[in-house]
């Protein structure tokens, strides 16, 4: 029953997020707003961690199963992709390398700056 109560809280956050998206017209997924809502409720202690944690852990653990069906739609694109797969992989790899460099640099610069302020704990 505990798990069911947590699941209900999660469903209601998801639903509230979808309602907010519907009426605001914001171009964001309702589930992401639902996530921020649940985080806010936890931080405000309006929802106890123990209430939602078992259900949340189960859902996160099965995430890969919920993602998988969307990929099967690739079968409708096989003809279109056949000639360009190598090109698409190259693009995705390049974007990843560029992003990892900029993210790493920016994070390291700021970590060192704040580290020095706090007595160099980050080196």
């Amino acid at each position: 029953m505990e798990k069911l109560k947590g699941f209900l809280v999660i469903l209601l956050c998801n639903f509230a997020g979808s309602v907010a998206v519907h009426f605001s017209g914001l171009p964001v997924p309702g589930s992401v707003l639902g996530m921020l809502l649940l985080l806010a409720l936890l931080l405000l202690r309006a929802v106890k961690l123990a209430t939602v944690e078992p259900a949340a852990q189960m859902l996160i653990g099965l995430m890969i199963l919920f993602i998988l069906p969307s990929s099967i739609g690739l079968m409708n694109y096989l003809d279109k992709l056949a000639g360009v797969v190598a090109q698409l992989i190259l693009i995705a790899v390049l974007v990843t390398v560029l992003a990892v460099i900029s993210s790493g640099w920016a994070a390291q610069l700021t970590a060192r700056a704040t580290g020095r302020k706090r007595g160099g704990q980050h080196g």
Partner: protein
Amino acid sequence: MADWRLLLVTPLFGVSLTIGMMVFYTRLFKHARSPLLNPLLFSIASIIGLLLAAGIPYESYEKGGAVLSFFLGPAIVSLAVPLYRQFDRLKANALPIFAGIIAGVVVSLSSAVLLARLFQLSRELTVSLMPLGTTSAISMNLAQMQGGDRALTMFFVNVAGISGYMMSVKVLDAVKVTNPAARGIALGNTSHAMGTKRGFELGEEEGAMASLALSITAVVTTVMMPLFIRLLGV
């Protein structure tokens, strides 16, 4: 006797096939170290192969697929729980986390659009490519809302995850990013779950920062992707 193919249009078919493949490949690759021996990739390929070989249309599978996909929304909402548990770490490292992630997302979104233009990709492919650094559950929705395709996004997200797992640590070494927190942030910011896995192989600090970065990246990309689409006229 009734046509046996009627069984293929009940959700039971798609749900059983999906769970069956995942159970099979998770067992098979239990001790595999390579990021390419990945139950998700092999299940996708096997299910597509099976449907094509048997001449079963995507729509039959999707009856069951939709049942599983429904739970994606609640699973995304659930990500608030690990985020909440790590909130102290987030507060303590807010500056490097947000600086790293914003820099990474800006470069990721803009380089994706520029490369897509260079290679003359269609708008559908471009939009599906843009959120490749965001965990697939969320990036699929982001792409779809802007006219992209969920399956194409999954393709790019997997390339980012696997290539990041294999290369990012070498790249970070090469550009002299040695700070453990920064390395974790960069991994989670670009290679989501696979990056987090790689982070935990490096150490506790790297892994924890990567998993935080994964969630924050999703939020930052959710906000920035529509802006970049307008800004760059995609």
